[in-house]
């Protein structure tokens, strides 16, 4: 038997008064499909199912969702990694408003990203060529710039669930540190001043849910620790 039991969170604001779980039987033909492939098969059964997807190779960050209780990207999560007892339960990313089915409103997540001023700031007139950067300084950006803004981390973080309007969240803080760590950026003290209140950074309790779910293997908790160190060094 290669029939997989798939249970998908459904909600259409036009017709449903409340969300419900829809059951599908999907024939995997014994293959170890990716969860996104399974979603395509369920959409063939019911074309009204809505989910985001784009690159299908784990770099665009569209298809973050909750699969059997854990956040991840559907396109690079093989069934063998998540399915237990032949059952797959798919829910939208937790903590964000649902627009429809597996599609969540990521507005507040993007807003926190924008808040950390995610762009290089350097008012020194640029040279005619590139700004030089040593390989060692460039290495400091590894593990930071690779973020794909899929929101798997921030939506698995209880502090972000409770205070999404005040706590920047792991994704935004990882990017904040990406610019703090960049030898070419000149706005370090302005950036730090924006972060030293009790919410923006300090709501991180270090439980490392973000690290556990990041599909790119990044470590926001470590970046947050580095920001705290910088704040401390800056204040003393």
């Amino acid at each position, binding site marked *: 038997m290669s029939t997989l039991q798939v249970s998908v969170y459904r909600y259409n604001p036009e017709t449903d008064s409340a969300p419900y779980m829809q059951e599908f039987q999907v024939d995997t033909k014994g293959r170890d499909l990716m969860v996104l492939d399974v979603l395509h098969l369920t959409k063939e059964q019911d*074309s009204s199912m809505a989910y985001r997807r784009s690159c299908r190779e784990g770099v665009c960050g569209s298809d973050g969702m909750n699969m059997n209780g854990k956040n991840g990207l559907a396109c690079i999560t093989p069934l063998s990694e998540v399915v237990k007892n032949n059952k797959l339960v798919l829910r939208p990313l937790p903590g964000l408003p649902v627009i429809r089915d597996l599609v969540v409103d990521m507005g507040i997540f993007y807003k926190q990203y924008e808040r950390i001023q995610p762009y290089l700031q350097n008012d020194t007139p640029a040279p005619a060529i590139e700004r030089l950067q040593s390989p060692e300084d460039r290495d400091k950006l590894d593990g930071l710039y690779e973020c794909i803004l899929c929101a798997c981390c921030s939506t698995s973080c209880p502090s972000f669930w409770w205070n999404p309007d005040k706590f920047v969240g792991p994704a935004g803080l990882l990017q904040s540190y990406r610019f703090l760590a960049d030898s070419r950026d000149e706005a370090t003290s302005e950036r730090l001043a924006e972060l030293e209140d009790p919410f923006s950074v300090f709501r991180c309790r270090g439980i490392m849910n973000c690290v556990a779910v990041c599909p790119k293997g990044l470590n926001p908790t470590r970046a947050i620790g580095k920001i705290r160190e910088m704040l401390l060094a800056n204040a003393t």
Partner: protein
Amino acid sequence: MSNMRSLSFDAIIIGGGGSGLRAALELAKSGKKTAVLSKVFPTRSHTVSAQGGITCAIASADPNDDWRWHMYDTVKGGDYIADQDAAEYMCSEGPKAVFELEHMGLPFSRFDNGRIYQRPFGGQSKNFGEGGQAARTCAAADRTGHALLHTLYQNNLKNNTTFLNEWYAVDLVKNANGDVVGCIALDIETGEVVHVKSKATVLATGGAGRIYASTTNALINTGDGIGMALRAGFPMQDMEMWQFHPTGIYGAGTLVTEGCRGEGGYLVNKDGERFMERYAPNAKDLAGRDVVARSMVMEILEGRGCGDKADHVFLKLDHLGEEVLGKRLPGIVELSKTFAHVDPAKEPIPVVPTCHYMMGGIPTNVHGQAVMQDADGNDQIVNGLFACGEAACVSVHGANRLGGNSLLDLVVFGRAAGMFIEGALNEGIDYLEATDSDVDAAMKRMSRWNESNGGESVPDLKAELQDIMQNAFGVFRQEDNMQEGVKKLAELRERIANAHLGDKSNAFNTARVEALELDNLMEVAEATAISALERKESRGAHSRYDYPDRDDVNWLKHSLYFPAEKVLGKRDVNFTPKTVDTFEPKVRTY
């Protein structure tokens, strides 16, 4: 449609990938009322998947590097139907555009002296092909597209660009004079249909690799801009020219960068032979992509393929060592493990040529202005319509694009379009307003789907279209096969015209978007098929068994596909660069 809401902009950019965001940045800085309309959040655009780098003569790896050498490679790589004035513009302006990206914060990898890291890519040479392999591709590890797209998005945030994210452009709106004065767009989240008016409409909608069953392209690459332009009656250039990337992961189709071979990897057949030494004795695995892809297919057809079905070859990387792989190709290690279940530090990656890039598209000049032909065969500017990036055919890639030239194309011509539109807006643009009936004409297709009640389903038809294209218009092509393909496509068009949209709800209805995308795939497929059938020669990526040779007497030309009559015309290739001597067509060997 009097009850439709309308929005007005100086310029609307359709598409939030590299070229769209670069154009938007230029316009946002100028203070023009600009919006980017994108069917996905911008960083989900396909530019994000680009891996190896951006090719440009910034003279970092080699202080004596010269943009003219890069231009020579580009023209030769394009099998001499790249426009030489456009290639000249791209290669000479390139360094400026790349340094700008660095100043914006793009985290390029570095050499010990602090300059941008450059790696060798296919088809690169020094001294006009005489000086051996060059290393000209600027890289951020193997995530250059991701780094580039995020950097551009970030700088658009910095400059307060207006974004209409998750909006889908349905069709262009033309006024009574045939000028493009905006588009009809669907707000995917709410289902609202809006008339977007603009003085300049930029199609930066990317490629359409999804016309093939096997492609490295994202699921969103459905040629929406090409479809819109064709339905509006505008011609398409060189649509037969589709690049098959040598190294798509066997079975999955995901891309493995040419940078793997640039860093020293090579292809082997089932006997473990490095077969590219036979096909391209000098450049070997770094010959042009069309050459490598064809060689791989030859190996497979001659029974030297790998695996049970002998239908792929291997890309060998293990000799590079874990350290180089971890530092220079970390994304490839990840992708190989996920999609090929192979650790490239230990085993070779199974690969097969996979549809990757559309060299053709909307013909434009170097300012991004769309071009059509008048009755006498002369170029004529389309008022109000611009294109850049993969959707455009400037043409810098000719019949075959060199690796790393697509990202350069995006930023150079996105920037050029932005600068030109800014100037044009300053001088004043005044086109006739669209009437209600003009808007209704652009709404026709959308209304058709909304009123459909019965017929075949969208996914089935899409799969059929992709199979037709895969079977008849792949790496090698021949007359009878293509005739059959064109016939099947004509039938398919009828069936799509009667297909059914089952879900007619408003909120985030992805079924509706996929139905609208299917129309565009159909337009691109048919333009490709007819162009391929009519170009009776082999050049660059277009290889025919029945016409195996390049025919410079008849076909040193762009093809120009006219959608109304479904016929193929020709357009002259530019051979008059401004500051260098013309590169005369030569026999192309690597």
